């Protein structure tokens, strides 16, 4: 069973519906005691990094997520949820993240390219992962103005080119993230959600 972590940031309607279409069992909660029952977690998120971290801390969820990740439960951060997995962000001043992966969240450099990075971009797969099998050169839907500068290149499982190399799928051990919205990324995105769900299911057996 997947637990979708609800901390008041962003729209989880679409991701819920995508899981329902794939018949993946899930529940939504913002309470540690309830979430604890899950076999794996989705950390969604749209909005500002600082607000998101404040909300997570206020609900006691920041430490909870770190503990659960350390205990080996699969975790998938989506969009802002992926950025929160890293050490810190420069969005609206410096804010500390969850620190589960090494790196910083920076503003996409303005220049010839428009910010936000909005639209369909092609995935370049760097490190083989069960999440990305057969997805080389597939497209995903991105909407974001900040990107992750990962410290450990091996955690960047796939990237997309947008002036800078934008990490698109990250992961180490049982902690994963997608910068794009898998639930809005047609076949490729749904495949990633499905594979993550299967990983959660395997862990529960």
């Amino acid at each position, binding site marked *: 069973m997947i637990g979708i972590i609800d901390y008041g940031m962003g*729209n989880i*309607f*679409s991701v819920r*519906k*995508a899981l*329902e*279409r794939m018949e993946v069992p899930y529940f939504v909660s913002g309470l540690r005691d309830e979430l604890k029952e899950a076999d794996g977690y989705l950390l969604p998120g*749209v*909005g*500002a990094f600082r607000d998101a971290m404040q909300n997570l801390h206020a609900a006691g969820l920041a430490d909870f997520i770190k503990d659960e990740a350390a205990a080996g439960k699969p975790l998938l951060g989506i969009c802002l949820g992926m950025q929160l997995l890293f050490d810190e962000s420069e969005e609206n001043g410096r804010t500390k993240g969850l620190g589960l992966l090494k790196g910083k969240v920076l503003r996409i450099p*303005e220049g010839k390219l*428009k*910010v*936000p*990075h*909005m*639209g*369909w*971009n*092609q995935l370049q797969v760097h490190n083989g992962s069960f999440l990305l099998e057969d997805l080389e050169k597939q*497209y995903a*839907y*991105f*909407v*974001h*103005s900040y990107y992750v500068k990962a410290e450990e290149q091996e955690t960047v499982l796939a990237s997309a*080119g*947008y002036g800078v190399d934008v990490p698109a799928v990250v992961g180490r051990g049982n902690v994963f993230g997608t910068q794009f*919205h898998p*639930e*809005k*990324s*047609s*076949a490729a*995105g*749904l495949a990633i959600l499905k594979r993550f769900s299967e990983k959660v299911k395997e862990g529960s057996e």
Partner: protein
Amino acid sequence: MITKRIIPCLDVKEGRVVKGVQFVELRDAGDPVELAKFYDEEGADELVFLDISASHEGRKTMIEVVEQTAAELAIPFTVGGGINSLEDMKAILRAGADKVSVNTAALLNPHLISEGALYFGSQCIVTAIDAKYDEALGSYRVYTHGGRKPTEWKAVDWAKEAVKRGTGEILLTSMDQDGAKNGFELELTRQISEAVSVPVIASGGAGNADHFYDAFTEGKADAALAASIFHYKETSVKEVKDRLKGRGVNIR
């Protein structure tokens, strides 16, 4: 590199798609959800629903349509038409739309853009601009109320103002070209695309695949929207995309 987007637009009235849609193979060509799925399968990059309901009941029905569409669709979609307040935006976005588009209400009260962008993030707020060339102005003039009322704004100035206030995207319709099917208004599109830092969706005038090519190259648009040529099957999303790929445009 990011791809150029092809966006079919559906007019929805009291929960039904109107303005001539010819899809014999669909069970119900007036059902927004079925049409949305059809375009998704054809390779549409995004969809726009324009709610043209006149009644309060029609607006409520639209929320149900948005919910059903969001439940079935794995591509982003925008809802516009009659969005007057932050409450309207909330209702549409909570029902599962990815973006809302504002037009007349934003011109009457530009603060609506700032409010929406602050609350939901810029990426959720699209500003739709209807513009028409104006000899006296020597430029393109912005209109409200579905093109019925002229404003004092030049299109390029209003686009910049909307971006300053936090809009994440501009949906630019040429009233001169709309429905004429002889191509997008390239000069207008290029002016706006060059003036703002957010993506610009060209709209109005699509008649064939090559018109999209012109919008992306000469017009420098990031996306292009069309309605009737897709609904009447004069061409298809797939055909347009194949043609663009053949001409070297970066397309999904």
